[in-house]
């Protein structure tokens, strides 16, 4: 399985990507090591139960639609006062030492096959650097994918007592080239691959809120890892909205490393047709007095399928931990499927931890009530779906993200 891509990936390609970005030698080295590691690495783990794999990643056929040198994309980077939002080449020029120190410190560049692939091939990179004490909102990074495959990397560093709210949007550009040149006979026409790795480092008392809204076209396969380290009294909060793609495999993770650190992971997805979302929220409590709150809500229509994994891992030194997790899925269609596995791994007894998960449909009584008030059934259902997302939307501090998510939800309902 893991040898399949190798055929059309070469060191020369990786060297070209690196030299086009004027990368220093250490970065090229990271890429080449990741390339070499591909041979031995496994695909990201998927949940298995007797007789079933919840997501089949082997069906991706990467070698058919990954073209490492086709890197067309557009990026808008909106910075805020005091915050540096830099493209990869520029960032390396200005903060080479800092990046060398932090790159790969949060997400292992060789964590699995797809991450290593991303490390070797990423061409779109962004560094968001928030110096000590700076408080900023409305940092925005919008990526439009204009190629058959795109590998994206983002590093967020918030120094002591800094605070930043970041919005990332991923969509497919209108000028996008028709993918899969040879699609006529290899059966991969119209397929794309998007891969994104985000590392976030929150120093002492620093706050990072990272909101991502993914609305790629529904011919796209999508792999994302977002992972943060929270220092003492620091916070790393994630908001993850998934609307687009044919298949998404995404994990949003926080390690609570400093005393009193916190993390909130909010997820929302809305799948229709044959979309498949495999999403995970994971948190590791590794210090005293840490708090985590994981909230995910998803809606499934048509033949869409969701896989949710939530992990609350409390280490043996995590005294006085609070950890909560809620996941709710609403099924609008009989053909859809919702799989969920909320996990608790508790190694310290001084813990208050809970999780809950529900799966259900639109409440008949709610519907009846609204119909009796003169709203037709379809409108009533739409309103109930919009209402279902409210507890998640309320967690979103960035207006643009909230508005966009609301708009995308109501567009899908039309």
């Amino acid at each position: 399985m893991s040898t399949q891509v190798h055929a059309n990936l070469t060191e020369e390609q990786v060297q070209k990507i690196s030299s086009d970005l004027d990368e220093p030698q250490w970065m090229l080295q990271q890429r080449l090591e990741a390339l070499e590691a591909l041979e031995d690495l496994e695909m990201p783990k998927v949940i298995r139960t007797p007789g079933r794999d919840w997501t089949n990643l082997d069906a991706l056929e990467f070698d058919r639609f990954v073209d490492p040198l086709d890197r067309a994309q557009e990026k808008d980077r909106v910075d805020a006062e005091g915050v540096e939002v830099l493209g990869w080449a520029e960032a390396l020029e200005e903060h080479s030492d800092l990046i060398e120190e932090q790159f790969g410190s949060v997400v292992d560049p060789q964590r699995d096959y797809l991450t290593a692939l991303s490390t070797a091939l990423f061409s779109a990179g962004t560094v968001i650097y928030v110096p000590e004490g700076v408080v900023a909102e409305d940092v925005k990074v919008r990526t439009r994918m204009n190629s058959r495959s795109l590998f994206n990397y983002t590093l967020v560093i918030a120094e002591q007592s800094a605070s930043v709210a970041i919005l990332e949007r991923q969509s497919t550009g209108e000028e996008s080239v028709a993918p899969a040149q040879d699609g006529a006979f290899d059966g991969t026409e119209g397929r794309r691959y998007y891969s994104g790795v985000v590392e976030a480092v929150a120093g002492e008392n620093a706050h990072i809120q990272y909101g991502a809204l993914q609305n790629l076209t529904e011919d796209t396969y999508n792999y994302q890892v977002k992972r943060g380290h929270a220092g003492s009294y620091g916070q790393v909060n994630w908001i993850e909205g998934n609307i687009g793609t044919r298949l998404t495999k995404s994990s949003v993770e926080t390690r609570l490393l400093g005393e009193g650190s916190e993390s909130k992971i909010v997820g929302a997805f809305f799948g229709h047709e044959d979309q498949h979302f495999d999403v995970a929220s994971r948190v590791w409590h590794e210090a005293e007095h840490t708090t985590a709150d994981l909230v995910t809500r998803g809606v499934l229509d048509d033949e869409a399928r969701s896989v949710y994994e939530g992990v609350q891992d409390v280490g043996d030194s995590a005294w006085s931990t609070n950890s909560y997790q809620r996941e709710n899925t609403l099924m609008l269609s009989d053909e859809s499927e919702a799989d969920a596995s909320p996990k608790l791994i508790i190694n310290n007894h001084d813990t208050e931890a809970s999780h809950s998960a529900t799966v259900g449909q639109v409440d008949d009584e709610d519907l009846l009530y609204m119909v009796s008030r003169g709203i037709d059934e379809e409108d009533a259902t739409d309103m109930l779906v919009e209402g279902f997302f409210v507890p998640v939307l309320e967690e979103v501090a960035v207006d643009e993200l909230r508005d966009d998510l609301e708009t995308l939800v109501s567009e899908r309902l039309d």
Partner: protein
Amino acid sequence: MSSEELQNTDTEARFEFKKEESSAFEAEKGLTEETIRVISEDKNEPEWMLERRLRALRVFQEMPMPDDWPGAPDLSEVDVDEIVPYIRPDIDARGGADNWEDLPDEIQDTFDKLGIPEAEKNALSGVGAQYESEIVYQNMQEQWEEKGVVFCDMDKAVQDHEEILKEYFMTKAVPPSDNKFAALHGAVWSGGSFVYVPEDTTVEMPVQAYFRMNSDGMGQFEHTLIIAEENSEVHYIEGCSAPKYSEFNLHSGGVEVFVKENAHVQYSTVQNWSKNTYNLNTKRAIAEEDATMEWVSGSMGSKATMLYPSTILKGPGATDNHITIAFAGEGQDIDTGAKVYHNAPDTKSTIESKSISKDGGRTNYRGLVHIADGAKDSSTAVECDALMFDNNSTSDTMPYMEIQESQVDVAHEATVGKIGDEDVFYLQSRGLDDDDAKQMIVAGFIEPITEELPIEYAVELNRLIELEMEGSLG
């Protein structure tokens, strides 16, 4: 035996003793086709049963160990070749002695300490006590025999109820291909109970069997088959305990329950294998239309347990209830839970799990709820609560939900916490010492389980927990 008498029994003595081995036949160590043939021949089994054993042996040899599960207990010490699969106690009466007095003194003594005959006299309608691999004592009160209720050991059932066994034995509920240890079980099974309840019959008192292992390096592979015909009702109780040994033991039982239309079966287990036993069981029920299956399981003993009683809700309106309690102390890894397959409309399931971990023990709730496409108006509610005593222990919860039908109601909830300081303080202020206060809190924590059990079992469960907690708190 009154509950008061049971309270006064020295619990430690009841569970820590071991008898001199005295066996008529001991199979060669190691597992080969020859071993299987010897077992089958010694039991005078029909050809079809030998063939099933050999088929299961081949499946066993082909299947991998279940070691790729996240957080699965370490089974690397399980070396099946070191297990003597079959030991038959040295008694004349094959298929069980009819009278308690006919049993060898030593065996009588063992069961006396466990309180079996007293319990039987008081409340139980039948007792099948398994010493080593075979049922040595069988009794069924006459009133049930008249109604056509069958309660006998499996070896006898193979001879006397051949057609029924041919149809049901490891064909529908637990095929050997289910997992590696089910396959092992299918190859070397020995002893166990057969319960048959005819149509429209209610067995009012619980049917009980007690299993013990008492030989070094010995595995026990008893098979239980329960068939409850339409509109019938039965409560089966299985209790297990084994003395401590230096060499490890393997227990790999198989339980198959068939709950026919509108029938009701409760299967209760209190398991207290010694702390060096690997307890790897496969238990499954198939529930037809409007049938109810109830599993009540207490897992106290063993070094490692992997046990997930499962129910296939095959008929519309069928119901499944699980109540499970796990208690892991020093060196124990209790990985247990439940599996439910909703394969028909209007099916309901509830799972209530309570686990306690202390002194470095690990408990894990591992459960699967599957709602198949078309199982409309089904509902499931899963509730897992865990209590942790100290910082060396681990408490994990790993539920899996697969929902393929939209008209359903699925809810899962879990909590983990430490024993409440305030609760302990309150009880201490009422004059209880720290140990007693904690024992009382634990007893309250598991009450939903104990109240489902007959009084003797509830008392025994509480006594076992008391024993587990004695001297190790403070």
